């Protein structure tokens, strides 16, 4: 079932070569919202990816599969923009069932105690070509204010007439700051965890 589902976009890929399908959305600047609009995060086209150094020799990657939230975006007035993201801790997926069970347990995320990981922005500023987003990251029962770099990937219409906007946030977190201390010394896991949060959100115009 999953394979069939994944095969559909692949099967449709050749259609993008046809003129009607390859019509590019208008450039972001041309369709930039003149005022703040709120978009709902499209979980199917969004991802929360992490990587952690393992025994100091390589990176292990994983992701969270269930997320939601909203983005309010005003390109001309970034201060009016905001983002709220909610990730289900037990949706962690590191391509190893046994490891995922362990990561969900009290040694790491303790997802039964703390089912949600949330980020709620409090300030958005223009920074170079992108934005600096400051907000509270709540993880493992601890809330910390962090500032992350956000890239505005694009804004434009989709084939169904909705307006879409995309961002990518990159930042590092230190598990000890969130009271996760199991095997998190630099010799085993870490130091730190690299995070990429890629968001695509849509709204009815």
């Amino acid at each position: 079932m999953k394979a069939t589902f994944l095969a559909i976009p692949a099967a449709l890929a050749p259609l993008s070569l046809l003129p009607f399908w390859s019509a590019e959305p208008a450039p972001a600047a041309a369709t930039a919202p003149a005022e703040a609009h709120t978009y709902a995060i499209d979980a199917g086209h969004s991802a929360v990816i992490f990587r952690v150094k393992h025994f100091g020799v390589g990176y292990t990657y994983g992701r969270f599969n269930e997320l939601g939230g909203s983005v309010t975006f005003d390109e001309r007035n970034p201060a009016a923009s905001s983002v709220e993201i909610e990730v289900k801790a037990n949706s962690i997926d590191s391509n190893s069932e046994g490891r995922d069970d362990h990561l969900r347990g009290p040694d790491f995320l303790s997802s039964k105690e703390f089912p949600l990981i949330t980020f709620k922005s409090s300030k958005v500023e223009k920074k170079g070509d992108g934005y600096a987003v400051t907000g509270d990251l709540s993880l493992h029962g601890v809330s910390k204010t962090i500032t992350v770099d956000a890239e505005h990937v694009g804004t434009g219409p989709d084939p169904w007439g909705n307006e879409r906007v995309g961002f990518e946030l990159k930042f590092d977190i230190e598990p000890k700051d969130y009271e996760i201390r199991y095997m998190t010394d630099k010799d085993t896991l870490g130091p730190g965890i690299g995070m990429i949060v890629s968001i695509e959100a849509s709204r009815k115009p």
Partner: protein
Amino acid sequence: MSSAFLKAALGGIVPPIAVSSLCLAPLLRRGDGTPRAAGLYGALALGLGAAAGSLFVLGGFEGVQRPVSVLQRLFWVGGIGAAAGVVEALLAKRTLLRVAARLAITGGLFYWILGFVREHQWEGNEAVMWMTGLTLATCAVWTALDAIAKRRPGPGLPLALCAAVSGTAGALAISGSGSLGQTAGALAAALGPAFVLCALRRDVTLERALAPFALLFACLLLGGHYAADLPASAALLCGASPLLAGLVLLLSGRLRPWLAVVAALIVVLAATGGAAWLGYTPTPDNPYY
């Protein structure tokens, strides 16, 4: 074995043994083995010893200053258990007050430890029913173990309790939490010097010293079940193992003492082994460590 794994394995064992030995040292002197003194020093040894191990598991004081998780709260349960032992010693001759204190401390502790279950899982009166039931059951086991300790002095009971917690540590580690297993290991390690003391001083018993054991053991099982993946049946088997071992010691009056201890250990092994088997979930993929 790498230094990290060695540190993790020994760190939860050496500090509890050291702290527990220090607390029990005064009882080695003749004349200091009154039930009240034994209860006081014994409770301090078990509670502070286990807390020392927990501290190591959590990476030092930094890890316990803001106890947000069950794992971090277990450090404080060790301390509260030691304090409960002091209360028990102070109320030694006031049975009703002592029982009331036991119920209040146990109930309050469970309310704190199981906050996340009250928030996310139990609905309506479920929380009241479960909290009441768990509190009564824990106090009943605690009281029964006290009575067994009084009637069967000697190293048998501390050894059986040590075996029960060690087996539980294995079951917890197998069912998804190395840290909970390590904390249980710390409690088992803290029982080691108590075993040695009871072997050397046959007149010393663990009666009234079991507050930290009863509280921490119960909280470990609750944490294992509600925060990790220890099945309820496995938690019940682990929880029953000290009582079963105690009953074997109590009812085997005709057996030689060492044979009674062996029988108690077999019962503990069967119960905790069964719990580990129930808690083990085979995964199809390769080891991920």
